[in-house]
Structures are given as structure tokens and as C-alpha cells.
């Protein structure tokens, strides 16, 4: 059960045609993500990490190769609402309360009213925002807003969570706190998480698998299976194992940059 691949990409390529000629956002990417994995994609900007996430989410289409999500094409996976997507900005609607914002995908997907209420309550507790249901987004801090947007992605029954630099705009202290919460959330919900970041400590701290990517063309240079235990206090970042993995990630990133 644990080894069943959730995402499989084979020779995946995506080329954008621009007026300056073709841009190879992704080139021959091969990757397997297993159920329950926490996979981080790390690399400099232009390495295709976000593009890869968007292909998984059917927000972009590959130009060559194949990719399956839950055994079907990304389009079918999207239509069966197989994943929740958390964007860089919380993107909460100012005219809806926090509860109303979390309810939005549930309304769209046609959950009945009682079920909606119960789900909103549950996910708000999950992200530690119980009691904020009736508040409006502007009454919350940036970190809380991003937690609400994670709650929104968790509210419906998707077992994959795609996160595109969700904490990129937040300060370090808030970020540490949210990373800790995200891990406990992952532990509680048994979701498969794909997480785009450009912070090495964040990637190493969170992931069971770290995918190091490099630009021009966007490709995978290293895949590191983390030996760290599932249970990770923040202090784990000072252990030799952690530092060793961080080193390997840094080396991978440097190697990818060699041609600059």
C-alpha cells in the first residue's frame, strides 16, 4: 500500500514557445511520488519546479512524455478533485469570512450544508484557527491567512496536497512555526504532499524525499530520500544527519549552476 505510486512522470518535457525562441521549462523529467510521501522540489528560479507542480495540477500541459496522477491523467485527476492546491498567496476572498472562504470549494463541489459546516469546523481545528470562522481575512495576519488557505485545500477529500512556495512571503519565525504545523498536519492526515520551495532548511526539515532541480533546461539533478525520522522537532536542524543532507542539496544546486 505504501509503495503505490501517486504521481508517475516519464520523460516529461514542457517547452514554451516564446518570441525569443523555445524555452525548455522541463526536459526529460522522471519521477515517482509514493503515497504518503512529503516531496520537496527545490532549485533556483526557472528550474521548472513550479511548472512541474502545475503540470501535475493540469494547469499546464506537457509537450512530451507522460504523467499520471492517481493512475490517471492530470486532467481526470483535476476533474475528480484529487488534489488541493495551495498557492504562494493565500488568495482569500475579502468579501467572505474565513469560514466562507473554506466553504467556497465545498459549495462548488456540491457538499450539503451540514457536511460543509462540519468540515469547516474540522479543518479550522486542524490548522489551529478554531474560533476564527466568522472573522474576515483582513482581521488575520499573513501567516494565519496562509493557514486558512491550507485549511481550504484540506476541506475536501483530496489525498494529494500541492503547495507552491506557500510560505515564501512570510518571515522566518512564522515560517518555522508553520513548517512545524505542516508536519503535524501531514502526520495526522496521511496526505501525499508535493511542496515547492527555494529554502534548503525548509526542504530538508519537511521532506521524506527532496528533488533538486536545475534550470535551462529545467531538469532533476538529484533525488534524495531523507533518512530523518517522521517525528521531527525543530531542533533536528542542528543534528549532523540534517546538516549532511543540507550539504548534499547544496552540492546538487551548485552542480546545476555549473554552466553559469
Amino acid at each position, binding site marked *: 500500500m505504501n509503495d503505490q505510486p501517486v504521481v508517475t512522470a516519464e520523460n516529461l518535457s514542457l517547452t514554451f514557445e516564446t518570441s525569443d525562441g523555445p524555452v525548455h521549462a522541463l526536459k526529460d523529467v522522471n519521477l515517482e511520488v509514493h503515497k504518503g510521501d512529503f516531496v520537496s522540489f527545490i532549485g533556483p528560479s526557472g528550474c521548472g519546479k513550479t511548472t512541474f507542480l502545475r503540470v501535475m495540477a493540469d*494547469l499546464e500541459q506537457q509537450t512530451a512524455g507522460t504523467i499520471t496522477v492517481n493512475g490517471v491523467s492530470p486532467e481526470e485527476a483535476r476533474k475528480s*478533485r484529487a488534489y488541493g492546491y495551495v498557492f504562494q498567496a493565500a*488568495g482569500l*476572498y*475579502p*468579501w467572505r469570512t474565513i469560514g466562507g472562504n473554506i466553504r467556497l470549494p465545498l459549495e*462548488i*463541489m456540491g457538499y450539503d450544508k451540514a457536511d460543509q459546516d462540519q468540515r469547516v469546523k474540522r479543518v479550522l481545528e486542524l490548522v489551529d484557527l478554531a474560533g476564527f470562522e466568522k472573522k474576515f481575512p483582513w482581521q488575520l495576519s499573513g501567516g494565519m491567512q496562509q493557514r486558512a488557505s491550507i485549511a481550504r485545500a484540506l476541506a475536501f477529500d483530496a489525498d494529494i496536497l500541492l503547495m507552491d512556495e506557500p510560505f515564501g512571503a512570510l518571515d522566518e519565525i512564522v515560517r518555522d512555526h508553520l513548517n512545524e504545523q505542516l508536519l503535524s498536519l501531514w502526520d495526522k492526515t496521511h496526505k501525499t504532499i508535493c511542496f515547492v520551495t527555494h529554502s534548503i532548511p525548509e526542504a530538508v526539515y519537511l521532506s521524506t524525499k527532496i528533488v533538486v532541480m536545475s534550470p535551462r533546461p529545467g531538469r532533476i539533478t538529484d533525488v534524495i530520500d531523507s533518512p530523518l525520522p517522521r517525528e521531527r522537532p525543530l531542533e533536528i536542524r542542528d543534528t549532523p544527519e540534517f546538516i549532511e543532507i543540507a550539504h548534499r542539496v547544496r552540492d546538487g544546486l551548485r552542480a546545476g549552476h555549473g554552466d553559469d
Partner: protein
Amino acid sequence: MRNLLPVLTVVAAIIALWYGAAIMLNSTWAQDKATRAGTTLSMTELITDTWSQKKPKLPVPHQVAAEIWQTTVEKKITSKRSLIYHAGITFSSTMLGFVMGTALGIALAIGIVFNRTMDMSVMPWVIASQTIPILAIAPMIIVVLNAVGISGLLPKAMISMYLSFFPVVVGMVKGLRSPSHMQLDQMRTWHASASQTFWRLRLPSSMPYLFTSLKVAMAASLVGAIVGELPTGAVAGLGARLLAGSYYGQTIQIWSALVMAAALAAGLVSIIGLVQRLTLKRMGMA
């Protein structure tokens, strides 16, 4: 209240300029009268005369105010000489035209945003429609509609609509397209239908644009109503008062109708402004 002083200062300056201009513009006629009567005017007499002529080139504020007082407070509303009666007629076709124009504008904007063919084909015509001078097309609308048996309020409202739908189309197209790529992608990840995206994201996002457009549309609608009243034979309405005034050289009447029209426009636009503030505040967008 802090901005009351600057506003009052500007108003005082305008009134002072106005009285001064009236002396300059009306003095020729005062001097002519004096020459014919074989008298000469002292400075005080000249000024008093220029400020109290029956058909001055430029009536002074107190003359206009007196005329407005006589034709509003001192006349019954049902009287044909009541400015309120005429303003009411203009108001009703302004409102009908405004409502029709807003509806048409929103409908066109939705079509343009959701349908590529409409985007390519309708927008140029919408813009072209506004390059035709309304004064040229207004009599034709009246005549054509009269020929098919439509007269009264509707033809005037059509002219108002013709002017007021334009700002609504332009504003709403922009407004309905205002959600970011991220917000639209988000809807896509939820596999939301076009109508769900419209009602839950595009329409609420467009509200600030809608209200701004409505203010412009309301002012345009009033202009349309007044222009629509000119070719109807100057029967009733503020436009009719303007036309009748210019036929008979009743400058005071013209100015009082103008002031009334301006007050009406200011009132209507500020009502929209109030609704805008309340709505956007409730929506957390103000």
C-alpha cells in the same frame, strides 16, 4: 468637515468672479439704455443695473437663486412653470435610461468576457457608437420610434441608454477580468464551472469597477435625457426649459434649469457614491 474651508473658499471665489463678469458682460446694455434715455450712469447705478437686468447676458447668482425659489417653492409641483415638475420629467427618463443602459452594459460585458467572438466583434461597435454625436442621432431616434408608435418616456430613455451603457460595458469588462491568474487557476483546480466562477469570483471582484462606471453612466444618462427633450418640441423637462429659455432670451431661466440639472446630477451621483461606500465596506474591498 476639515475640507469645508477650502471648498467654501473656492465657492466664494467663483461667486466673486461671477458678479465681476456680470458687470463686464452686462454693462454694454446698461450704457445703451442710459444713452437712449440721455442720462449718464454713476458707478453704483451701473453695477446695480448690471445685476438686475431682465434679460442679462450673464445673470448673477442671486437672480438665478430667486428664479429657482419662485419656480420651486412658490409654484405648485403640478404647474407647468414649476422647475420641480420639469426636473421630475427629466429624472424619470434619466432613471429609466440608466437602468436600461446598466442592464445592457452588464449583459454586453458578460458576453464580451465569456465569448471570444463577441470580444472581437462587439467591442469595436460599442466604441464606434460613442463617436457619433448624440445631438445628431437623438432626433432620428425620436422620429423613428414615433413612426412605429412609441412616444413619451421611452424614446428619451433610449437616448439616455445610448449614452449610459458605454461606461458600464467598459468598466464591467475590466471588472469581470480583474481576478488574478492565481484566483482563476484556483477555481480551475476545484473544477468550477464557468457560471460558478462568474457568480463567486468574477462578479464580486467587479464591484469596485461597476460602481465607478455607474457614476459616469448616471451623469451621461442625465445628459442623454436633456438632449432627448430638445427635439421633442420642448414640451416638458429641463431640456425643454433650456430650449424655451434660449428661444425667448430668458437667460435667467436657462441658468436656473442648468443649476437644477447640475444639482440633480450631483444628487444622483452621490447616492451611487453612498451605496458604493456601504457595499464595498461590507465586502471588505474599500
